[in-house]
Each structure stands twice: as structure tokens, then as C-alpha cells.
């Protein structure tokens, strides 16, 4: 067998660039850049008074993240990332290693240890793990294409996901752990795992949730942190908490509702500007959009995400290899899950889990991670288009 290291042979740099540009999914690029720019401007509008004397603190950092992210996106699109799907265990090992480093030298905020200090910035390996996991799982399935449908492969994939997910969960970062789960489910589903496996997994998840939320606490074993339980219980209406979690969600709904059809504009967004809306540049940025730009702005943003997801699903159908298909599927699931859970949280139909909104929320690691994921999609598109 011959090994092709490049899909196309030869050519200088100019020619390679030409190929790169002609092979780009311009619709996907445009949609992601529009959302990212909108996110940058929203962060700017929402944070001008957050740090007295430094109106551009979050904006300038966001800008750096975005430029860095776009650079990494281009790299991911151009480099032969498909090779990584051929080295799933190496990627897996690197991910676990990075997560382990967090435990040793990690910094923490709000009671959870998530990142590694890198100069002026903090880096969360768990965020990059989302894209890595897509590559790992897709690679493992492609390697064992004949075993698809066997219990052994399904259990292997579950195990491969569960280990980093548990590490992330105990940081604790419930939201990212759930994203890992969504990626796993989507890849298993698209790989063609039998429904019985999926149904069994669902049953295990329900049983585990009951155990974690109800049975074990009753037995005196606390798996979730009190704030996590509180958030979930507040959402389900089991406890009526006027402060903290219930307060955040309530204020978020007020902000969204106050936006009305056309929005209050950056100046009239009192929920945001007067700090009634918590975490308005990170987890609740969608509520800021809704308050400032109304149904028109917020609905338009949802449609833009729809466009991104549509392009991603098109790649699942058309990718040039099974590994690419599954990577694309995993990334679609990862983005869709984050978008739905985050926006659902700000409009009060999902519990608060601390999942950022892709391309919008302030934060370096997830911006880089999500843009790299888009870069992976672009690479898949290129490989397909250049045939």
C-alpha cells in the first residue's frame, strides 16, 4: 500500500495557497466570522463599565483571542490534521497529560481548578479536549470500522471518553464533561452503533443521574458540588431560591424579555449595564444580545448558528473518509449542544451548567477550541473539494 502524505502532489507555496482558498467553505467561514465579530462587539458593549478606568479590558483581550483563534483555524484547515485521527492513542495520552498538569499547577476560580497559566493568559486543556475528543473517537472508529456494532468497540469508546470526562467533571466542570458526552453520543450514533447500545447508554445515564442527584446524597455521599445541585434543583423548580442560581436565571429572563422585538440598544440595556445580569460577557452573553438587539438580533444569531451547523452536517454527508465524517459529526454535535444548552439556560429552559456560547462568550480557551474545530471542518471540506 502506498501512503499519500498529501492529497495533491507537488506545487509551490503559491499554488498550495490557491488550492487552500479555492477549497474553502466560504459560507462557513463567513458565518463563523460574522458571529465572532458580533460576539466581539457585544463583549465590548457589555463590559465598558465592568472594570473602572479600563473600558476596553475585555474587548482587547477578546480581540487577541479572536485573532489567535482565526490563525489557529487557518492552520487547522491547512495542516494535514487527518493524520491525528490515525494516532488516536497519542492524542488521548496528550489530552490526559494536559488535564493532569492542571491538577498539579492549575489555577482556580469560583471553587474550580480548570486552567494552566501561560504568561498573561490562562489555558484550559479541557476546552481543547472537546476538539481532540472528536479526533480521537473518529480515529478509533475508523481504525476498527469492521467492529462497529460490537459491544467491545462501544465500551471502548465510552471508556475512552469517560476517563477525561471524569477528570474534567471533578475539576469540577460539569458543563464541559457534558459536552464530551454529547460528542460521544453523536459519533456513536453516526458510526452506526445499534439502537440497543444507545438505549442502554441512555438508561445508564438516567440511572446515574438519579444516583448522583438523589440516592447518594440521601446516603450522605455528595458527588456534585452543592452549587451544582442547587442550580439543577432551582431549574427543576424543586427549590425556590431567590438568590444565586434562581436569581441569575430570573435576571437573565428579564434581560431577554426586556429586549422585546427590536431591543433596547447598547445604551438602554439596563439589565446588562447595571450589573443585574450576572456573567454578562461570558455565560449570559446571549441575554445581552437579546436585551440590546431584541428578537431580531437574537433570532438572527440563532439562524446564524443554524447555518454553521447546516454546513457541518453537509460535511458529514460528503466528507472524503469515514474518519472525516465522524470528526465533522462530533464537531456539529459539540457546537449544537453548546449553543442549545447555553441559549436554553439564558432563556430559562435549561439549567445553569456553565457552558459558554461558541464564538460569542468571552474566554480564550473555548474561543480557540471552537475556532480550531471550525478549522478542522474547513480542512475536511478542502479534502473533499479538492478531489
Amino acid at each position, binding site marked *: 500500500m*502506498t*501512503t*499519500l502524505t498529501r*492529497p495533491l502532489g507537488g506545487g509551490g507555496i503559491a499554488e498550495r495557497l490557491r488550492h487552500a482558498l479555492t477549497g474553502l467553505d466560504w459560507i462557513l467561514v463567513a458565518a463563523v466570522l460574522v458571529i465572532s465579530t458580533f460576539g466581539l462587539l457585544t463583549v465590548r458593549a457589555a463590559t465598558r463599565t465592568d472594570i473602572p478606568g479600563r473600558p476596553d479590558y475585555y474587548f482587547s483581550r477578546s480581540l487577541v483571542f479572536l485573532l489567535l483563534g482565526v490563525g489557529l483555524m487557518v492552520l487547522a484547515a491547512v495542516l494535514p490534521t*487527518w493524520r491525528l485521527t*490515525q494516532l488516536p492513542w497519542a492524542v488521548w495520552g496528550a489530552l490526559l497529560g494536559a488535564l493532569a498538569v492542571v491538577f498539579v499547577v492549575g489555577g482556580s476560580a469560583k471553587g474550580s481548578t480548570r486552567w494552566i497559566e501561560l504568561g498573561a493568559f490562562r489555558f484550559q486543556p479541557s476546552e481543547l479536549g472537546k476538539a481532540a475528543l472528536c479526533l480521537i473517537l473518529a480515529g478509533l472508529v*475508523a481504525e476498527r470500522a469492521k467492529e462497529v456494532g460490537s459491544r467491545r468497540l462501544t465500551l471502548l469508546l465510552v471508556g475512552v471518553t469517560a476517563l477525561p470526562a471524569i477528570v474534567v467533571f471533578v475539576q469540577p466542570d460539569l458543563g464541559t464533561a457534558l459536552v464530551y458526552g454529547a460528542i460521544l453520543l*453523536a459519533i456513536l*450514533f*453516526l458510526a*452506526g452503533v445499534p439502537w440497543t447500545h444507545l438505549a442502554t447508554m441512555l438508561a445508564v445515564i438516567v440511572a446515574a443521574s438519579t444516583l448522583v442527584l438523589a440516592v447518594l446524597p440521601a446516603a450522605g455521599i455528595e458527588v456534585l458540588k452543592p452549587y451544582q445541585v442547587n442550580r439543577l434543583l432551582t431549574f427543576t423548580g424543586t427549590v425556590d431560591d*431567590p*438568590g444565586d442560581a434562581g436569581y441569575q436565571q430570573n*435576571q437573565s*429572563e*428579564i*434581560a*431577554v*424579555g*426586556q*429586549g*422585546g*422585538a427590536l431591543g433596547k440598544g447598547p445604551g438602554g440595556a*439596563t*439589565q446588562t*449595564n*447595571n*450589573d*443585574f445580569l450576572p456573567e454578562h460577557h461570558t455565560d449570559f452573553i446571549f441575554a445581552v444580545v*437579546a436585551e440590546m438587539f*431584541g*428578537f431580531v438580533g*437574537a*433570532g438572527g444569531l*440563532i*439562524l446564524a*448558528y*443554524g447555518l454553521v*451547523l447546516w454546513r457541518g*452536517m453537509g460535511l*458529514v*454527508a*460528503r*466528507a*472524503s*473518509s*469515514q474518519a472525516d*465524517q465522524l470528526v465533522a*459529526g462530533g464537531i*456539529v454535535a459539540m457546537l449544537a449542544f453548546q*449553543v*442549545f444548552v447555553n*441559549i*436554553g439556560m439564558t*432563556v*430559562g*429552559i435549561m439549567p445553569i451548567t456553565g457552558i459558554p456560547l461558541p464564538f460569542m462568550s468571552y474566554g480564550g480557551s473555548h474561543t480557540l477550541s471552537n475556532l480550531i474545530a471550525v478549522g478542522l471542518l474547513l480542512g475536511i471540506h478542502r*479534502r*473533499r473539494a479538492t*478531489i
Partner: protein
Amino acid sequence: MTTRPLPGPAGSPHLTPQLARRLAVLGAVVLAALAVLLLRLWFLQVIGGAEFERQATDNRIRTVSVEAPRGVITDRNGKELVRNRAGENVVIRPQELPAAHRARVVAMLARALKTTPAAIEEKIDEAGQNSLQSVVIAEDVGPLEQAFVEERHRQLPGVGLEATYVREYPEKVGGVAVAGLLLGYTQQIPAEEAAAYRRKGYRLDEHVGIEGIEKRYEDYLRGTAGQFRYEVDATGEQTARGVISARPPRPGHSIRLSIDLATQRTLEDQLRERVALSGLSKAAAGVAIDPQTGQVLALASYPSYDPDAFARRQEKRIAAFWRDPRQPFFNRAIQGRYPPASTFKPITSVAALETGKLRPDELVASPGSIKLYGQPWKNFGGVDLGLLTVRQALMFSADTFFDEVATRFYEDYKARGRDLLQDWARRFGYGRPTGIDIPGEDAGVLPTPQWKRETFKDNPDPVSRIWLPGDTIQMAIGQKDLQVTPLQVAVAYAAIANGGRVVTPTIVNQVEQPDGTAVLTPWRGHAARSVGVSERTLGVVRDGLYMVANNYDGTAVGVFQTLPDDVKAAGKTGTAENSGADHSWFVGYAPYYKPRIVIAIVVENGGQGANAAAPAVCRVMGAYLRFDGASCGGGAKAN
């Protein structure tokens, strides 16, 4: 190493039918999720927008009500009788007090304010947990409590100080606010009137007038609270946008009484002193009016509660006032019923002269004792005063003279069924309220044959219901069933002094805006009613009253004879019989030739009129007419 497979020309060779189906399912799930988000967004923003906008406004707008000072009350010359002093209330804004901290904050406050957590909780609950209004927890707290709240404001979220005003009484007599009984006091709205005040837009922790002028003129005295609306951020701090609207508080109207501070002070002082001197007496009352206008110059009842005790919330003193058997809340000057005794003889005289029962110079015998209709009557001390004219009879206060005149009224009643004496008493204002502009006035009792039939209709003894000669005789000398208030007596004598006009007494001269513009002048509203008495008759009676005070034989000459010529007084003593020791009356006016003040004083159980009441009247005259009280004598000759 696996080989990267070569892709097919159209689509992926790996798009199996199974993958296509599953991809469709994934697409449907994603589509459904986005649709759910859009629907929810539509529901929140387009349908619920207005409601959320209101909630957002509640979030960021604080409305603070700023108490307005209550109007001041002054005497006729603008001297303040009650005013306001600034104080601080401790308040809780329930909405800003997080539930998690509530128990701790309430416990801290209770300790500092020397109250119980339960009492504070009750006040919060009354206002409602989510009330945007602040709830007053402690009124007018001292500097220690103020410092406590200010220094610990970080530990006490939702707790603050709010400016308030407290009533203050700059003028005192014997440790009690001057004219306290007239002014009344203010307190938090009583529970039974809560609904009525709420309808008028009051907050339930506001203070309202409970008695006297404070109550009667509540609508004017109450200021209009200011309102500040400002924007806050999530921490409750004012934002850069700051005050959204500001309506400064408007102070209440001030009220200028007709009371003259010096005269009022002297009257209260004299009542207290006469009660103290008499030994038997426990209470006294008096009223001074301007006979020309009806303006009340002084009005007092002793003992009186002190409204300052309410302002300072001195619970023990307040309780003592309520317990006091002398009833310090009872305003004897307008609510006390007393037999007028000999002070009624001028009315009897007018009635007799005007109805022709007596001629001005007719001589009537006044023996030491006399038997009329089988009953014995006698003069004071059994003295035979010989033949007297009506002037002399008034001067001597000759009982048997008026007993004889009374028989003429009785004969008229028997012959023609007329109640001429009562008719004239009614014309002078007896038996009905004078119409003074403070609440609670008593009408007194003016007995008539009909009154007697009705009053005793349940009495088994039929004789008790019959109008007897003795009834007319007793009435002519102001004893037994006839009951009057000191104010009625003053009004009747004002009519004698002013040429026969019955004035309506008023205590408020005018209601003024804070800038001094009058908005209401109650005393101008009442046209005096004419008694319909001839000048000739009045002249005769006035002569008699002058002689009481100035003639060698007058009953009160010892008190008034030494007054300066320009303030010569006239008046009448009275000694009212009752179940206990006699009540001492004196009614007088001065200056005789141009009367400016009429004063009626009764000292309960004070003995003879000339002894207790007359010296007090003289000194009150002195305070108003600016002569030295030392000009007044102390003693008396007879009743």
C-alpha cells in the same frame, strides 16, 4: 499504518444508507432544538416583552419617599406653639434584605434598638416581604442607634436611616406644653382608622393628628411627601445616570391660632395655681374670647396631658395620663358641664326686663329668707338686703330678689304656657353648641317643662315629670338642672359686652401656606347672630356687672377695684352648688367702656366665685390688656 482512502467523485463513498438516515435524524434534532429556542425567544421577547420591561424597571428604579415637615401652629402673633425637629428613623427596605441574611440582620437590629426580633418581623410582614417602600422599624432614634446603623451598614443590608420630623413644643407651663390640649397630638395612624387614611393616600407609618387642632386641620397640616426616583445597579448603588425624577417635599400649611400666647400662658398658670391654693379643688377650666369677633384668646383645662410626651414617646407618662382620674384628656372649657350659678342672673335680668316682668328701676324686696309656693328660699348668709333695683340685685347677687322675679315667669308659664326665661337663655346660646372650630364641644342642658317630661318619663313618681315653681326659681339663679360650659358662658357675656351679638367662637385665625399667604380664614366665616335685646336693657345689666367689680358693695370689688381706670372691668361671680364643694365661677370683661376680652373661669370645688375664680380672671385680663397682675386684689366679700 492505515491508508487514507481516496475519495469518490460525488459525495462520499462512505455515505451509507444507514448514515444518511442517522444524519437526517441528527439534522431533525438540531432543527428542532433551534426551533425550540426561537419559539421560547418569541414568547419571552415579543409576547412577554412589556411585562419583563416592567420588571427590569422595578429592578433599576428606586423610589424614595422623603417626608415633608408638618405645618407649624402659632399663636395670633406668629409665636410658635408647635414646630418640628429633625430626627432619624431606622428603616428596612425588605426588597434589599436578602432572605439568607434576614434572621441575622433582624436579630442584630433587635439588640441595638432594644426590641424583639418578633416585633421587627411583624413590621416587615405588615408591609410585605417584597415591599419597595421602606418600613419604619424605630422612630426618632438617638445618636447611639444612628451610629450603630451607619457604622455597620455592610453587615446590615437593606437597613438604613431616613430623615423624619418630630413635633416639638417650645413653650411650656409647669412642664407641660402651652395650649397642649388645644393643639392635640400626633401618632401613627391608629389601626381602626387605617382604611380611611389609606384611601386618602397615607402610608400606614405616617403620623396623623389624633386630637385638637392637629386632628381638625390634619388635611392642611400634613405636608406633601417628596419623591425621588433614581437608577441603581445590582448592588443598590446609584448609577451615573442618577436621579430620574425629583419632587421635593412640600411642608404642610401652618396654622395661626387666635390664641394669644401670653394670655394662654397666664390662664394655664392661674388655673394650676387656683387649684393648688384651694385645697379641695382638683380641676379648673377657663376661656377668654374677644367679644367683638369671637376669636378665642385663651382656652385651657387643668389638668391637661402633655403632647410632648407623645412626641418623645414617653410611654410611662402617656400611660399615667390615661390612668389619671382627673381626666387630663377632657377639655373642661368646652366639654365640662357646670351649673352657671349666679353668673346666670344677668340673663334672668335681661329676660325679665325685655318681657316686662320687671322694670329697670322697680324695687323688689330681697329678704334674708322667703317662702314661695310653700318652699323656703334665702339669701347668702340669710342677710336681708331690703328693697333693691335689678342693678343692685346683680351687685349683691341677691338670691331672693331673683327668686321673686322667677315667680313672675312661673305665673306666666302657668297662665299662658310660655317659657320666657328659657327662650332668652337660648337666645344667648345656652343649650346648644357654640360652634367653635375644635371637635368635642358639649351643648349643656337647658331645662324646660318638655325637657323635664322626657327626661323623667321612666321615673315612677309622676311629680318628677311636672315643671314645678321651684324649677323656675332654681333656674333663675342658675342652679340645679341648668348646665353650661365655660365657653357658653363666655359667649353669652360677650353678647352682653358687645351690644347683643352672639358670636361664634373660633380658635384658628387663618391657615397659611408656608410663604404666609392665607388660604383659609375660619373666623371670618361666621356672622354673629343678634340676641334682639334693647340697648337700654343691656345698659342696666352692664351697670350691675360694673358695680359687682367696682362698687363698694360688689361681690368681687376686692379683686377688681384697684384696676387702672382705662381697664376697668365688669363681671359676675357664681357659686355653683353640686354634690361636692361648690364650684367657683367668675365671668368678666374689660375694659368696661370698650370691651376687648371676656373671660369665664370655673374652679371645680373652689368655693365662692370671688375667692378662686375672680382673681384668676383679673390676672388673665392683665396679661391681655397689659396691666400688672399685682393690681388685682385677692379676696372677696360674698357670693
